[in-house]
């Protein structure tokens, strides 16, 4: 996020795209609700009716995968009507002319045909966004989990740059992070390209510095991205170490991955629960959960905050960091860290974005009251950074990237006539290793379902609550059908949380050419009835969904 969560409530215009905020980021949704209550205008762009669309000024219910059409058409309006912040563009950016040329081809009228959103609405939203001072964009996986995910992000960034909505409070580009520490994991260098602090592993200076710091040699060519790595399991990847992730459940097209896991020679899993991936493990380390260890998480707004040990792990389970040290030392290393703070100190020694932050300093912020510190924070007396790009854009000049629409990798056809999207719900969390074990949450949502428009359902002889089979070119799963007018006709939607109905058996693993992020949000699917049936009590996914459903 270029802004902070605290700034949301003072925004005057919120453009929420590809984010089911009230379910996936409920606390950020509360801040947005507060902004709307204060009088801010919110526009939601989402193929489904979601809770946030009920309080939005406009809901742009676009067809899945057409984001570039919508965003380029908005840019078209901004250019055409002279709403570009020419001063900001001249002083802070480069490459704008290519974008101006490209978006000429994306008139709102043409966009209406592709996206299903009226040209008038596109014009209205573009004008409102460009002319409101405190206008922020909020997006999540609905933007990125496409084969054109990077294009979507560029198209959004173009809007931000051409209107100068950057480096100011409540006005910027804000991807909402899905996991507690996805920011911190990247910051710490758990990526094939970057060492800690986004320092490229193939930069000779950086690489030499780390070889010296670690007192050892290691390769400087970048490794494999996760999506590629998973496709290579059993092929070039013969040994796998997996910490705190159920890859077999969460990777797309996971039956292929299962074949690879069977062909792998050695698999180590480190987790608090016996997850699906443990079926393939040769060794399982019993790990700890957040309440049992010390350390830091870094949230969406780059805020580094402390995690504190409240209870002891059960049985012989250990803190993950202790296990990793023991494994390194069993493998011939000589690591000596006594505490998590020691590890943190080594981490920041060579990564100056975070080097002003320490466990001790974070602990001192608890009483102020204040909570954590936002990087960049290079020195112990630096106050941290609330919003980025205040004194000019960090990379020097903001780079425009002209992008053209590319269709999703797989669209409905004669055999698979429906478009399947997957997503998350309020009551469960990702693979639901934790939340399916909560009696209360499971009482609310105990069974997987697919939302299907009554018109599509009736065509296939499916009644509300029937057991159905969803199939794609990759496999099939069985779930309850839920009549829903939240989805558009010819689109269906299912949650990904349920191991007995693994959405990722059927999702498409085609990846974005830049990031390799898979297209979880669009693939072609067909649904057929398996049996009539009574749903168990907990199927109700939330009353909101019932509002429009037939009795």
């Amino acid at each position: 996020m270029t802004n902070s969560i605290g700034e949301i409530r003072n925004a005057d215009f919120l453009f929420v795209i590809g984010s089911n905020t009230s379910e996936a980021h409920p606390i950020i949704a509360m801040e947005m609700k507060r902004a709307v209550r204060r009088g801010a205008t919110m526009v939601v762009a989402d193929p489904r009716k979601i809770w946030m669309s009920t309080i939005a000024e406009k809901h742009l219910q676009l067809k899945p995968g057409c984001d570039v059409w919508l965003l380029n058409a908005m840019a078209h309006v901004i250019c055409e009507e002279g709403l570009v912040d020419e001063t900001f563009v001249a002083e802070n950016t480069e490459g704008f002319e290519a974008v101006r040329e490209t978006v000429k081809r994306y008139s709102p009228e043409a966009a209406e045909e592709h996206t299903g959103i009226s040209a008038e609405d596109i014009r209205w939203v573009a004008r409102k966004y460009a002319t409101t001072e405190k206008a922020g964009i909020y997006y999540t996986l609905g933007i990125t989990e496409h084969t054109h995910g990077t294009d979507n992000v560029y198209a959004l960034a173009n809007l931000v740059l051409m209107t100068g909505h950057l480096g100011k409070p409540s006005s910027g580009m804000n991807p909402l992070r899905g996991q507690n520490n996805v920011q911190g994991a990247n910051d710490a260098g758990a990526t094939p390209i970057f060492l800690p602090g986004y320092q490229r592993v193939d930069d000779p200076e950086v690489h030499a510095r780390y070889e010296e710091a670690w007192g050892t040699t290691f390769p400087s060519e970048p490794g494999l991205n996760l999506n590629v790595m998973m496709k290579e399991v059993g092929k070039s990847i013969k040994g796998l170490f997996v910490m705190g992730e159920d890859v077999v459940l969460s990777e797309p097209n996971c039956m292929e991955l299962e074949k690879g896991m069977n062909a792998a020679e050695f698999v180590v899993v480190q987790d608090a629960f016996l997850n699906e991936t443990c079926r393939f493990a040769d060794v399982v380390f019993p790990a700890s959960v957040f309440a049992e260890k010390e350390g830091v998480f870094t949230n969406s707004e780059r805020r580094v905050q402390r995690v504190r040990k409240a209870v002891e792990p059960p049985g012989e389970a250990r803190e993950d960091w202790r296990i990793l040290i023991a494994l390194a030392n069993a493998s011939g290393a000589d690591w000596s860290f006594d505490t998590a703070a020691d590890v943190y100190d080594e981490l920041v020694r060579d990564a100056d974005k975070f080097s002003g932050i320490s466990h001790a300093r974070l602990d001192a912020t608890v009483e102020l009251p204040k909570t954590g510190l936002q990087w960049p924070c290079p020195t112990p007396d630096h106050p941290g950074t609330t919003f980025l790009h205040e004194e000019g854009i960090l990379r020097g000049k903001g780079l425009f990237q002209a992008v053209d629409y590319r269709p999703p990798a797989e669209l409905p056809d004669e055999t698979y006539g429906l478009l399947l999207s997957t997503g998350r719900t309020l009551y469960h969390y990702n693979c639901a290793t934790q939340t399916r074990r909560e009696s209360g949450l499971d009482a609310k949502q105990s069974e997987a379902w697919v939302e299907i428009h009554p018109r599509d359902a009736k065509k296939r002889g499916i009644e509300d609550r029937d057991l159905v089979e969803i199939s794609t070119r990759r496999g099939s799963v069985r779930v309850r059908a839920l009549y829903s007018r939240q989805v558009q006709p010819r689109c269906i939607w299912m949650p990904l949380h349920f191991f007995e109905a693994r959405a990722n058996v059927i999702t498409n693993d085609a990846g974005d050419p830049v990031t390799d992020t898979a297209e979880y949000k669009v693939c072609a699917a067909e649904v057929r009835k398996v049996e009539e049936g009574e749903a168990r009590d907990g199927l109700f996914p939330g009353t909101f969904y019932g509002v429009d459903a037939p009795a």
Partner: protein
Amino acid sequence: MIERGEPDQPKRPARSIQVDGRQMPFQAGETILEVAQRAGAEIPTLCHDPRLEPAGACRTCLVEVEGQRRLLPACKTPAQDGAEVRTETERIDRHRKTLFALYLTDHPQDIEVAERGAPNELLEMAARYEAPRDWGFMESLRDNRDGDRNPYIHFNADTCISCARCTRYCEEVEGVSAITLAGRGAETTIATVDGLSLMDTTCEMCGGCVDVCPTGAMGEKMPLTREAKPERELTKVRSTCNFCGVGCQLDLNVDPDANDGRGQVVKVTSPPAGTTTNDGNLCVKGRFAYDFIHHEERITSPLVRNDAGELVPTSWENALSVAAAGLQGVSERHGPNGLGFVSSSRCTMEENYLVQKLSRAVFKTNNIHQCAAT
């Protein structure tokens, strides 16, 4: 404080009021309560919450304003230039004693009964201001909504004081309006549409009603049914929620003696409003999903796969040497890039650092990625 920026407002000339003789400048729109709290005055409040629009419902925050005949609710009265406010006078003290004594007439006075889990602010205030406790007693007439099958939120009508913090939070902050005030006079209670279970309403189980309730009338079910120790006997450990990327701060309420001395997370509460990014708010997962910590299906010993293909318990020493030898074997047979390391965006920054160092420095491969990469 959390940096929030400011809404755009027209600039106005400086203004001030006097609070207990102290001159205090204020911004347009601020209430007497906000200015007085900045001046360090202690004004008791029950229905007030900085996240909510002022209601002036509980009458505990009444103060004297020079020239006004009646006492005024500090929470709802805008500060006006030149006003002289007094927060501690004989008249105010008399008012507070009377008010708390009246509240106590249909409120259980035994702390064991009245304090079901969370601290009861009304009883604390009544004690602090030495309210008389002999003004008689009548049964509470409020409807209880017993039998609500929702798993998390319990409503105890006996200790409800109709301050409407819960219903206002539900409407103004969470925005779902699942609960509402119903009935009139002494029968006023907290109700749902048609008396439905919260499970079947628009409720999203954020538990904000539990958090804001000053008397514990809105309580958390699980600690109650499990007969956990009351909140004041628990140790609070401030930590960061482990679900989504918002990074809400929460307090793990730990019973250190439970669970054979390993400690047990008995409930989760949120820090006071205004002090953290989440502004004292939590969602259903942050506030209520803590049972996984002590779940019986946790792995409690290292496991290795035996010749029969089953995962069986083993010692740490053996598990570590089998794992190290296995990974090294792959590396020897297929080269370092025959190995892949998947790290976790759910684990700490320190742990992610160690996995990438393990991958690079020990096993000589850059095939390391955290799990949220796809």
